[in-house]
């Protein structure tokens, strides 16, 4: 197997472990089918392997560790979509991919297919530490201080099958970034970690704790400003031990760490962590420079060589093609290396399902990554895909390839870049459909000139209070609610997930599904009337307050 860029390389131990787990699950499936296991006995076992039973079929959620993929893995997804699903995959808001039409009896074969490309579905469900998420621009962004992937991998290895943390009071989510510009929603995670270089050049970590969305949205609080690298694992271990010991197991709605942190207060929580650290064998958890280096050595780095004049080629192509130029404005990010650029592929073509990709599109994305991005792709928690390292003189050809496969929408960060959970069309927990309203909004604002005129505006839609669509963090958030069997949407304004993380504020009574798109259109119109100069939606909202938007939303005359 060729060495993949930007990813930890499995060894035989990793592969043997996965193979053993699949055989174990295969036997469990057989025992379920022959009746040796009841559904109640089998359910926790299948969930440990990422297999849910949803409305229409089983759903398999595959972990994408810190959002990094190689071309072979993306082709394997295409293969699963074609052979075992209905030709689609769906990228989630935790950088994973899920397949919505899976048969129980096929699952062991699917897991074997995935294991062939070093992938699995472990810890994508259950009350354990879930897939660690990271910055989709890791190792590439000009504004990055530390590449977070090495430490993300360390966290992955530490948290995978952690014997003490397999049955926590509730699920546990960790995100890590190495940029001061938070792109991972660190403050909305159970633990959010921001890495930066310390005074001595070694990495230190700012740690937030007790953030989350769901039923009780809370912005995480800083527990530590600068944990030294060698104490990272000990500190995280202590934080989760305190949660494991004191988290509420008696009430599922109060079981997340955020409730405990709120109940104790962050200072008292810190005291508990310190007390735990004081009685731990710290040496056992010490993350030595040698250990970090050994993990780092398992990552291959791209040989970033761009020809002289690459930037000039891009400038010339932008000048010649306005459509391409618009896409570059919205869908690219500055790269750390001269002559390179980061490209974001929007999985939100107007009127389509956010995060859905066809098997053919997956194959094409894999091919484009090999031609233009060192065979590497990343997924984002905003349900898009990123090519991390693209030569500027090749960006135009990449864009042409994306347009050919229907993935050239120039709307990243704009109103058409809607985040939505699967909602009631697929999810057994949902109260309302998220996707149709996302499609209607996408179609309503399909005009790319209008989208650019509106500017940065993030819409997030969740079909229930579990908030998989991160609606509390949307500039405009929609929460689907069920009123006597009919769908309504409660709107929030002003949410954001960056370094100024804020929970959106409820605007007023929930609106019938039929009125919601019009209400958002009126809010956007009012913003365009109210804004001063180049103010963003959030800036205008902050300046004028919610009153004009509330008036617009409920103005049905």
């Amino acid at each position, binding site marked *: 197997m060729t060495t993949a860029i930007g990813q930890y390389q499995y060894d035989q131990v990793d592969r043997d472990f996965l193979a053993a787990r699949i055989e174990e699950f295969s036997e469990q499936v057989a025992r379920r089918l022959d*009746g040796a296991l009841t*559904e109640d006995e089998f359910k926790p076992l299948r969930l440990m392997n990422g297999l849910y039973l949803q409305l229409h*079929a089983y759903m398999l959620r595959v972990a994408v560790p810190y959002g990094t993929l190689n071309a072979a893995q993306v082709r394997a997804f295409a293969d699963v979509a074609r052979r075992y699903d209905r030709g689609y995959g769906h990228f989630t808001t935790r950088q994973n991919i899920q397949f919505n039409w899976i*048969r*129980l009896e096929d699952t062991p074969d699917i897991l074997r297919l995935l294991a062939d490309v070093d992938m699995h579905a472990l810890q994508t469900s259950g009350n354990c530490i879930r897939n660690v998420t990271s910055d989709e621009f890791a190792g590439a962004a000009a504004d990055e201080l530390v590449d977070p992937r090495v430490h993300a991998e360390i966290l992955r290895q530490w948290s995978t099958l952690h014997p003490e943390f397999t049955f926590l009071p509730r699920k546990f989510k960790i995100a890590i970034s190495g940029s001061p510009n938070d792109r991972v929603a660190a403050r909305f995670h159970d633990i959010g970690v921001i890495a930066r270089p310390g005074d001595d050049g070694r990495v230190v970590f700012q740690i937030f704790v007790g953030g989350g969305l769901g039923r009780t949205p809370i912005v995480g609080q800083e527990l530590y400003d600068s944990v030294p690298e060698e104490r990272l694992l000990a500190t995280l271990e202590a934080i989760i031990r305190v949660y494991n010991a004191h988290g509420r197991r008696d009430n599922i709605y109060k079981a997340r760490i955020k409730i405990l942190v709120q109940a104790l207060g962050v200072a008292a929580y810190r005291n508990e962590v310190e007390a735990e650290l004081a009685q731990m064998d710290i040496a056992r958890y010490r993350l030595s420079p040698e250990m970090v280096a050994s993990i780092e050595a398992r990552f291959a780095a791209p040989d970033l060589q761009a020809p002289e004049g690459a930037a000039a080629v891009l400038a010339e192509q932008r000048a010649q093609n306005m459509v391409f130029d618009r896409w570059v404005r919205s869908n690219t990010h500055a790269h750390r290396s001269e002559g390179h650029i980061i490209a974001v592929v929007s999985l939100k073509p107007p009127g389509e399902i956010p995060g859905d990709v066809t098997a053919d599109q997956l194959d094409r994305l894999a091919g484009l990554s090999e031609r233009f991005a060192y065979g590497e792709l990343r997924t984002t928690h905003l349900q898009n895909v990123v090519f991390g390292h693209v030569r500027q003189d090749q960006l135009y050809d990449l864009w042409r390839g994306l347009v050919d496969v229907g993935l050239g929408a120039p709307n990243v960060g704009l109103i058409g870049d809607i985040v939505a959970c699967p909602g*009631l*069309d697929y999810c057994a927990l949902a109260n309302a459909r998220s996707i149709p309203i996302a499609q209607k909004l996408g179609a309503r604002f399909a005009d790319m000139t209008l989208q650019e005129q509106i500017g940065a505006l993030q819409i997030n839609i969740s079909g229930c209070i579990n908030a998989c669509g991160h609606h509390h963090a949307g500039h405009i958030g929609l929460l689907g609610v069920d009123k006597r*069997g009919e769908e309504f949407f409660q709107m929030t304004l002003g949410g954001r997930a960056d370094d100024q993380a804020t929970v959106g504020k409820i605007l007023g009574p929930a609106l019938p599904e039929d009125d919601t798109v019009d209400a958002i259109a009126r809010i956007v119109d009012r913003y365009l009337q109210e804004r001063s100069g180049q103010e963003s939606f959030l800036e205008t909202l902050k300046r004028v307050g919610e009153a004009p938007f509330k008036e617009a939303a409920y103005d049905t005359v």
Partner: protein
Amino acid sequence: MKRAVRVGAGEGLVITANRLLDGAIVWLSADHTWQTAIQRAEVLVSDAVSERLEGVQSRAQADGVVGIYEIAVRPEVGGPVPLTMRERIRAFGPTVHPQFAYEQQEGAGA
């Protein structure tokens, strides 16, 4: 304890589940077999549901179904129509992929 599903005048109940092998939605018919089309579901009155549920629960493994429960429907000429959006989506397929809509009158059993 699970709350009884309320039905209004002119409404009835049907019993549904997911098929163990593939998760497909199935409906209990009058001959006590599981069918993939809601049109074949037997519409029951409230009083008859508990006993019928008990019976099918005891045969769930043999029948290859999981997650058995009852839902309220409105009997119509083309067959029973669930009252809630959730159950309409289960009965007729996801609203966002027209190609995945369930074929009506399809009759394959569980």
